[in-house]
């Protein structure tokens, strides 16, 4: 070694003791996150998974993302010997029991969102005193007060009150009940200010512990909290008397002590004790932080507030410790809000500022490797090289001096490699290559431009072992070199060599081995080429790197997982080249990649790839056809999961022989074993936290989450929903899926957006379904449902339609009946008139006629004049009878057809002309037979006809009469021709007969044409609309 030129500046720091076990990492929820106050008195988890916090100034509900506050106050009084704290206990049927300010017992109905104060229980008239503590199960409700214990039997509704004075053996230790615990044997442990009294399942006193009859109370052990661990041992916290322990085999409590120097102080004030499912006992103290004892390892850890560590406990006064449904532990502190621990927070080990000594470089990690003895080497940017031993309990940071004076930024370690001899190769940016002995940590050799063992460049981006002493190094300006750690450069490839040995550019960014004889070289801008390490020939696989990712694309990292070479770029996503098929693929954020800048790609055995990006760490399980890559192929982890930060660095990645993955970034180094990553014990469940109807929150908005069914009117058809994921620890990478059944069946991938909206939903019944997962594409997450029924307006209901139909039918029927009855009425009137004429007038006229005839016969001969008069009477009566007959005929509905009119016309002609010996012919069109004539038409038609016939009979002296009745369209034509006297058509205007004919014809838009020549007969043409 050229020791004369090497000046090593080593800053060795004293050992720093940290517990070997990974320390618990806490997440905080404080007043800035929406909590109503930073003193959290009690905590409870409801059946859905919401976590409730009681504070002095409000009741809080937390869904993992958002806090909802209810107005309710709680006591927060703590003294070294006792305390009075509000309580929250989840009951059945969406009930939370509360002990609010002043020891008031209340029931909170989550669905109705109503508080109900309880002053009495059951049928008992006893007014309850202030309540200290409560325990509720199916059989009993126990209320601990300062005046003894109250036991309420749910079944019998009976209230029992036990005090010190109650006759029992043993008797109650003290009237002041401070806490109640139920053990695995279903026994109730009443914690008093003077030891413990145990009740059996029925509520009978069976045992007493830690009782003191000291009247001064100085030796009394005031008990505050208790838990029973998985093994069945009891852990008891007290006010100022330390922690007690009762093994399940022994029937007494002893002060808890542990081998080793770390102890829980004897005067500790304990406010909360909890035994979790992993064998840990959590002891929350007032003023001394948190103790966690692992029952299996008997290791005690002590957590206190550390303002430098964002993941430490937030406050040293702990008031309550509770479990949630997903294995998480929640701690309420008296001033520091809520601390949340979940084993998923410890998926990633972390080295950062918070857990390494102050002078140790741990930020801006640029390279990492491990050595054969488990030591960890961490290169940083401008802060030197940090080493920590296998136990991670000693740290040292090396700073290497510049190889020549005037060099700035010489402390950037950008590549690290540990060779088979155990020597550590240190590649710097601008300060050459150093080789260290990993045990002595002395520089063995150093290469840089101008040195005896010269290196053509001062920046070494990447290294890849070639043989026991030789390593390929990729430089920034001098291409690729094969270095022997003793001899220096033995082979160099640059952009100026012969064909087959020439590189496309000198800036070599990444190297990865594909097989014994092939190395893949990644260039800064020129894509990748292959090097045969036996023949030293460069092969260009012609990967269209620039075409895929753009001409200016910068390569960041390479990874080989047969048959793919994976290329990570700066801002241009991921490129895959299949060496067998020569196909290439380009995967970017569009295909679900969390970020387009890929700093490192580490292959996991099962075909999985891990990538560090500018948006956290992600795992990628490539699909069979890379073209089908979607978000569901990626799982993302972020700082919320305990990673150093969401931004990582180039070159800062390494997989050790024992499959531990190391990825470094701007704030430190994260370490994990992919196979050991933990998820929640229960699948995360989504909840619908808010519903807005027509852009207005529902009346009782916060109770929405407990609803199973929602009834809305047809006007309430614009809905929006907000969701929360219960049981997921990294809210920023929660993926929500939702759908509204009966509206669509496809799951809608909402990404991290916890909101869905629907507008103008038609009336009907729908089911809103939501699920949440941390892994996009995990379709097995449990589904949360809300049934929504939008009721149709009454005019669109079936019963209304039926009613309308009936109404219309009814109305039509009524109209029909009315019309019929009208017709019947007309008919009845007609019939009555006909009947009256028939009976009375007809008979009377006949009688007149008969009497006239009789008179005529009885007259003595010679009374010619009187005979004439009597004959006139008979004629008048006859005419009147005929007129009457015509009227009766015309009003009879059975004569409505033209056929009937025609028959009467024919008959009339017969009666008149046959008696007068006039020859006549009557022609009638057959087709009009069924044509209808109304009463008026019928009457006018017949009377016109009759007038003409009578005129012929009386005046014409005709011997031949021709009658034609025809129908032309809707005109009725009557032509009557005779061969009689004829008359002067101009001289007849004073006669009524013709006038009447014209008047009647005019009434029906008709015409009357009379042609007559004296001595040659007459033709009358009547035409009318019928």
């Amino acid at each position: 070694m050229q020791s004369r030129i090497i000046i090593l500046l080593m800053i060795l720091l004293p050992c720093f003791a940290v517990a070997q076990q990974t320390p618990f990492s806490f997440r905080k929820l404080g007043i800035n996150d929406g909590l109503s106050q930073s003193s959290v008195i009690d905590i409870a988890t409801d059946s859905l998974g919401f976590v409730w916090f009681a504070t002095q100034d409000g009741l809080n509900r937390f869904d993992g993302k958002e806090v909802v506050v209810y107005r309710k106050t709680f006591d927060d009084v703590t003294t070294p010997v006792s305390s009075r704290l509000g309580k929250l206990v989840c009951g059945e049927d969406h009930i939370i029991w509360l002990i609010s300010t002043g020891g008031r017992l209340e029931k909170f109905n989550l669905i109705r969102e109503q508080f109900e104060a309880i002053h009495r229980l059951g049928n008992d008239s006893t007014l309850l005193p202030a309540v200290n503590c409560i325990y509720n199960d199916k059989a009993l409700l126990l209320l601990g007060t300062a005046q003894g214990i109250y036991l309420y039997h749910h079944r019998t509704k009976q209230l029992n009150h036990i005090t010190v004075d109650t006759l029992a053996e043993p008797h109650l230790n003290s009237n002041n009940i401070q806490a109640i615990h139920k053990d695995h044997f279903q026994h109730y442990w009443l914690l008093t200010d003077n030891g413990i009294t145990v009740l059996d399942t029925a509520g009978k006193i069976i045992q007493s512990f830690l009782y003191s009859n000291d009247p001064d109370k100085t030796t009394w052990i005031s008990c505050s909290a208790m838990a029973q661990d998985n093994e069945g041992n009891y852990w008891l916290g007290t006010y100022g008397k330390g922690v007690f322990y009762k093994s399940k085999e022994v029937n007494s409590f002893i002060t808890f002590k542990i081998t080793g120097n770390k102890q829980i102080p004897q005067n500790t004030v304990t406010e909360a004790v909890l035994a979790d499912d992993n064998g840990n006992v959590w002891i929350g103290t007032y003023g001394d932080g948190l103790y966690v004892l692992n029952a299996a390892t008997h290791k005690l850890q002590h957590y206190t507030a550390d303002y430098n560590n964002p993941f430490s406990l937030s406050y040293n006064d702990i008031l309550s410790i509770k479990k949630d449904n997903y294995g998480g532990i929640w701690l309420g502190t008296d001033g520091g809000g809520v601390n949340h621990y979940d084993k998923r927070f410890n998926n990633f080990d972390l080295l950062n500022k918070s857990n390494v000594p102050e002078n140790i470089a741990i930020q801006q990690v640029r390279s990492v490797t491990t050595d054969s003895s488990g030591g960890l080497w961490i290169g940083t940017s401008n802060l030197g090289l940090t080493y920590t031993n296998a136990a991670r309990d000693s740290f040292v940071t090396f700073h290497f001096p510049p190889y020549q004076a005037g060099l700035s930024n010489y402390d950037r370690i950008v590549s690290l490699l540990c060779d088979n001899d155990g020597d550590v190769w240190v590649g710097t940016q601008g300060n050459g290559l150093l080789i260290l002995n990993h045990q002595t940590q002395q520089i063995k050799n150093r290469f840089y431009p101008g040195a005896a063992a010269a290196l053509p460049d001062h920046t070494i981006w990447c290294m890849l072992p070639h043989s026991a002493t030789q390593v390929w190094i990729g430089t920034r300006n001098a291409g690729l070199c094969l270095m022997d750690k003793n001899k220096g450069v033995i082979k160099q490839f640059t952009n100026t060599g012969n064909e087959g040995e020439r590189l496309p550019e000198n800036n070599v960014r990444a190297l990865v081995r594909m097989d014994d004889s092939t190395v893949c070289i990644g260039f800064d801008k020129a894509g990748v080429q292959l090097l045969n390490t036996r023949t030293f020939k460069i092969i260009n696989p012609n990967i269209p790197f620039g075409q895929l990712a753009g001409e200016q694309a910068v390569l960041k990292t390479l990874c080989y997982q047969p048959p793919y070479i994976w290329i990570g770029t700066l801002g241009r996503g991921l490129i895959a080249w299949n060496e067998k098929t020569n196909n290439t693929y380009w995967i970017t954020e569009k295909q679900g990649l969390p970020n387009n800048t890929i700093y490192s790609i580490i292959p996991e055995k099962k075909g999985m790839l891990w990538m560090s990006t500018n948006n956290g760490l992600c795992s990628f399980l490539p699909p069979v056809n890379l073209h089908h890559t979607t978000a569901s192929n990626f799982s993302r982890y972020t700082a919320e999961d305990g990673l150093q930060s969401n931004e990582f660095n180039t070159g800062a990645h390494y997989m050790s022989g024992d499959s531990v993955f190391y990825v470094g970034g701007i704030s430190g180094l994260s370490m994990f074993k992919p196979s050991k990553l933990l998820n929640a014990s229960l699948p995360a469940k989504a909840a619908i936290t808010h519903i807005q109807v027509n852009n207005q929150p529902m009346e009782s908005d916060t109770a929405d989450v407990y609803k199973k069914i929602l009834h809305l009117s047809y006007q309430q058809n614009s809905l929006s929903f907000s969701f929360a994921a219960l049981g997921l620890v990294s809210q920023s990478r929660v993926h929500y899926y939702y759908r509204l059944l009966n509206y669509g069946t496809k799951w809608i991938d909402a990404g991290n957006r916890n909101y869905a909206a629907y507008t103008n939903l038609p009336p009907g019944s729908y089911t809103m379904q939501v699920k949440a997962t941390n892994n996009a594409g995990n379709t097995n997450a449990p589904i949360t449902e809300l049934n929504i029924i939008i009721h149709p307006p009454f005019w669109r209901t079936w019963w209304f339609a039926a009613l309308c139909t009936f109404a219309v039918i009814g109305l039509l029927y009524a109209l029909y009946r009315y019309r019929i009855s009208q017709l019947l009425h007309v008919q009845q009137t007609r019939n009555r008139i006909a009947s009256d004429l028939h009976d009375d007038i007809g008979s009377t006229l006949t009688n007149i006629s008969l009497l006239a005839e009789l008179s005529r016969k009885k007259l003595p001969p010679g009374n010619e004049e009187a005979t004439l008069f009597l004959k006139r009477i008979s004629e008048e009566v006859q005419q009147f009878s005929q007129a009457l007959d015509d009227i009766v005929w015309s009003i009879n509905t059975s004569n409505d057809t033209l056929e009937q009119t025609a028959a009467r016309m024919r008959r009339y002609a017969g009666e008149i002309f046959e008696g007068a010996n006039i020859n006549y012919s009557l022609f009638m069109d057959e087709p009009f037979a069924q044509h209808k004539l109304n009463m008026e038409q019928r009457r006018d038609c017949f009377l016109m006809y009759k007038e003409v016939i009578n005129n012929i009979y009386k005046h014409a002296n005709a011997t031949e009469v021709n009658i034609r009745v025809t129908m032309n369209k809707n005109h009725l034509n009557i032509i009557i021709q005779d061969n009689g006297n004829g008359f002067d058509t101009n001289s007849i205007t004073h006669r009524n007969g013709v006038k009447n004919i014209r008047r009647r014809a005019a009434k029906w838009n008709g015409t009357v044409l009379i042609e007559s020549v004296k001595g040659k007969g007459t033709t009358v043409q009547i035409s009318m609309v019928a």
Partner: protein
Amino acid sequence: MPASIVLFEDNDRLRESLTYLLNMNGYTVMGSYGQCSEASLIARVYKPDVVLMDIDMPGISGIAGVQMIKESNPDTAVIMYTVFEDDEKLFQCLCAGANGYLLKKTPPAKLFDAINEVLEGGAPMSPIIAQKVLSTFRTKQEVNKYNLSLREKEVLQWLSKGYSIKMIATEMDIAFDTVRSHLKNIYQKLHVNCGKEAIAKALSERIV
């Protein structure tokens, strides 16, 4: 021997005038009644040649009266004395066995001719009644053996169109009296087909 006549007419004055007129002209009016509740007895006792029967009368109507008379004395010819010849009631009377009808408006001078004509079998028939007879026989065609002959049907068809007997005789190119005898037969068949069974039986024997 003058024909004996019984009158049923509820109009008292008309009845008196008619009785007087008939008696004066050589008929023997054996009785005149304002209602026909005793019609059976009267027919049996007097056995009149002719009964003039009004249709609308208080109590028992002329329709029932026709039946009563025909039941007790089928030989008596019943002539309905009516104002209106197209009345449904008139048709029912004809069905019930009436031999013809006489219109009240018939001038007294022609009254006796009309009675004689009816008695001789020249039964009058209006177009509407002819139509009704036709449709009656159309519906009863299947069950009755006394169907109308083709000739009779033809006569009825002409009648329903308003043709007089004279005109029908001309149209059908047959004698006036042949048309009248067709009409008489039609009446008989009508009685048998539509009247009460007892009368029908009694009357049916006269047809064949």
